[in-house]
């Protein structure tokens, strides 16, 4: 095998490792997610509405393994929407209040 080809293979391997590391690092910043979708309507109405399925899409599929990975555990403080939680406006599409736990 020509020496140049060996070098190419080494560089390609290094590239793969760095790309994987970069991808993993970017997922550690989950709290600040981005949304560039313009507002579809100006504001919420303070009315009770059923909960739509607006959860963010599932993360990209992991490499094939012998068994499917278990789903991520739910948040320890996930508030049910659709007049859930403390039944106030922010559980119905209104602005979020300043409560610290519900």
């Amino acid at each position, binding site marked *: 095998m020509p020496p*140049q080809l060996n070098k190419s293979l080494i560089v390609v391997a290094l590239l793969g490792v760095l790309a994987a590391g970069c991808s993993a690092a970017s997922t550690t910043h989950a709290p*600040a997610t981005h949304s560039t979708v313009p*507002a579809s*309507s100006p504001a919420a109405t303070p009315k009770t509405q059923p909960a739509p399925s607006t959860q963010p899409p599932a993360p990209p599929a992991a490499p094939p393994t012998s068994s499917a990975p278990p789903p991520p555990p739910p948040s320890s403080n996930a508030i049910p929407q*659709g007049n859930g939680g403390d039944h106030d*406006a922010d559980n119905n599409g209104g*602005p*979020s209040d*300043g*409560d610290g736990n519900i």
Partner: protein
Amino acid sequence: MATSSRAAIGFIAAVLVAVLAGCGMAAASHQVSDRPAGTVAPVRGTTAVPPVRGLAVRPAPAGWRRAALPGDQAVLAYPPSMHLVSGDPGTVSAAQLSSSGAYLMYLNATPRQGTESLRNWPAFRLRHLLDDDASAARLLAQSRGVSFAGGTGSCIVDAYVTKIHRHHYTELACYVQGRTSASVIIAAAPTAGRATLPRALTRAVGAYQTR
């Protein structure tokens, strides 16, 4: 053959540099500033920072109304265009609604309820938004050491999308530590094109009094 191999190596090296640069930019876009005091500072990599000029401590304008938290822990001032609306027990909320009942401006004062603090407020608030109401939340600016009447605060400006109806709001959210109590003040309005807040809301935050 040797020439083509060198060209291939050069190409791969260029791709490697581009990947590293992209990785660095992605990391930078999530950085948050940690300024000790002063006006709310924009997060590096963001552009649409709403105006927060009204954050300076100033008494509420004449004609504004006031509502106190239980025990007079804090006093929320709100303009006459807003009126008190129902909220969690022990909290105070005021809103201006459209003719169809949609929120145009929203203020809320809530006594400290959880583990929020001056130090952890930015992360706490974003995490709570995502746990509670929002499918997405984006930090736009933050500041610590913000002066309030009777105390000091940690503030963020963020934009979020509600899980219900996917409404877009921009909020100025401050955790305010007084001498004997701590509370949270929220000022929010629909995000219209770019993240901005009505001046009346930032003025209301600047007039927030704690003890």
